[in-house]
């Protein structure tokens, strides 16, 4: 028990359980506990969760990535322009998006390690540049910023499959989450990430290739956004440049709710998964309450704050023993 509570994900797990219990009691009779209700929050949690896995790794490594939302929108446009406007096979559009995303991540990483500027401001700039350049390209090529994307090959099944309303993104969340947890807990790369985020100078003196670690993390962060952008685009067969804008905040929020420190060096990806779950439950649960819909955002904000406070209390309590 003592060991469990000392784990960095313990707070996130408690938060997720608390909000689940809250909505199960207050909104269970309105369908929150139904199959459909469960699918709703799990789908939301899984899309955010996929974004939050590499964002969490990056934050543990001591950096931020504000450009993920823009990469989601850019991916959406690239996939839609290829398969919708030019009727190219879907996998080609996806491949282009992967190359683009990796390029953005590489640029983010290189700029941060070469200039030593805060990643907050570097990725804020690349966020704007990504959106602006893709908007220019899409208006230039198609005259529009929102394009129908009809799945035309196996990619459609791979990213848009659903059982009842349970979306295949849940499966990817579990698979990539498990792989990332393995990397972080069991490999030397994982140790390097914690060391880089903990104290970059000490890590470098100890022989950790901190620059390379950071660049790789930035690339992974963009690639997570590419996957989610493709999934969301095909789910509604519509490419939109504004898709994913919310992940600038919710991606980081999921990590923090899950116990990742904003200063880096501490946290866990299992916690991040609980953070995404908490966010998914809260942001959908409020609609099941049947309360005044105008106050929805107030409830979401207040519940997230309560979740973080309880999580933080728990950590202080656990470390204090």
């Amino acid at each position: 028990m003592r060991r469990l509570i000392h784990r960095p994900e313990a707070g996130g797990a408690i938060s997720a359980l608390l909000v689940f219990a809250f909505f199960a009691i207050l909104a269970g009779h309105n369908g929150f506990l139904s199959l459909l209700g469960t699918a709703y929050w799990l789908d939301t949690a899984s899309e955010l969760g996929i974004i939050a896995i590499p964002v969490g790794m990056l934050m543990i490594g001591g950096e931020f990535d504000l450009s993920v939302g823009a990469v989601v929108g850019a991916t959406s446009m690239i996939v839609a322009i290829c398969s919708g406007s030019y009727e190219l096979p879907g996998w080609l559009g996806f491949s282009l998006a992967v190359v683009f995303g990796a390029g953005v991540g590489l640029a983010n990483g290189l700029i941060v390690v070469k200039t030593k500027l805060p990643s907050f401001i570097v990725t804020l700039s690349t966020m704007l540049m990504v959106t602006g350049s893709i908007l220019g390209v899409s208006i230039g090529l198609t005259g529009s910023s929102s394009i129908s994307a009809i799945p035309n090959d196996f990619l459609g099944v791979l990213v848009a499959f659903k059982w009842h309303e349970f979306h295949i993104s849940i499966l990817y969340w579990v698979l990539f989450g498990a792989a990332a947890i393995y990397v972080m807990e069991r490999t030397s790369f994982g140790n390097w990430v914690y060391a880089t985020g903990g104290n970059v100078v000490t890590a470098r003196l100890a022989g950790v290739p901190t620059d390379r670690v950071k660049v790789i993390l930035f690339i992974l962060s963009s690639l997570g956004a590419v996957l989610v952008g493709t999934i969301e685009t095909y789910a509604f067969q519509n490419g939109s440049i504004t898709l994913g804008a919310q992940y600038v905040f919710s991606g980081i929020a999921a990590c923090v709710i899950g116990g990742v420190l904003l200063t880096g060096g501490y946290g866990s990806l299992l916690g991040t998964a609980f953070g995404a779950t908490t966010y998914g439950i809260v942001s959908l649960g409020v609609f099941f309450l049947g309360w005044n819909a105008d106050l929805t955002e107030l409830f979401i904000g207040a519940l997230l704050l309560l979740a973080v406070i309880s999580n933080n209390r728990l950590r202080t309590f656990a470390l204090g023993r």
Partner: protein
Amino acid sequence: MKFITKSQGGIPLARKIALGAASMGLAAVMGSVLPALADDPQITIAFVSGPLNDSFFPPLYQGAQDAAALLGAKLNYIPIDEADIEASSARTMQAAIAMKPDVIVVGDFITGVVDPLIKQAVAAGIPVFVNQSGQDQWEADGALGFIGQQGPEVGIVAAERLTKAGSKNILCVINVPGNPYLQAICKGLAEKAKELGVTSANLELPTADSTDQGKVSRDIGAYLQAHGDVDGIFTENAAVGTAAVAAVEAAQVADKVKIGTMEVSKVALQQIRDGKLLFLVNEQPYLDGYYGVMFAYNYAKYGLAPVGAVSTGPSVVDKSNVDKISAVFDKYKNVIGSN
């Protein structure tokens, strides 16, 4: 062929002699001839309106561009950033005034911010035409005309259509919380619904969700679970309309819940054909842009303008006329809709 200078711009006589439809036809003929005259100074038009990353605006921009090209006018389109709409509405209008154009066309979405700036432009001798939103204030602000759609009228049409189809409890979904134009539409819907003896409620989507169709669909689905009596939904853009269709299908209440939406999209047109969407309200944004530029040009050049507001909507698309609209949608890019 006298060029009306800015200082003469405010003469009321000019408006009195304007004969709306006739001047438009005449101008179209003259416009095609006049740019050839070398000594005629080019008319510069600053057009402040929504961003092209909002799928509503590409047709509006296209209409403005087409009219400018036809007339040989210089068009300067200044997009408002919707993510920061209050501050951006002020900045863009200030930029337009600073450019000293011959005439300004502005989408007055945030009236509290934009109205004083319209007055400022008028005071500086720049004639202003209000576009798309601002139907209640344009005359008081000293603007010379309004081209667009009256928000409450859209809501009235929506309430009538849904009630006629049998809806008793209508949900009006607002996708940009705090946008007065979108709220005016739901208010118009609520008032008409009350008059017709049916109930209505508003659902304001969280700001963070409005760009994510999947999340919007789940939000609406969850709301429907908690409010099982809802049997009619009206949404204020195409993406949210598609999300609402998906939500009622997932909840297996598609036969009970009727859906109408604003904004044309390829998917929405198909859904009307399939009977999944009852109707859509077309504001005809292409005409907002086209007439916006055309009226501004005619006023700057000849002092002529239509008298009173010119309505570009609400025009309704349903099963009866969807084929014609679809054909034009497919043939001409960015005229009916953008996606």
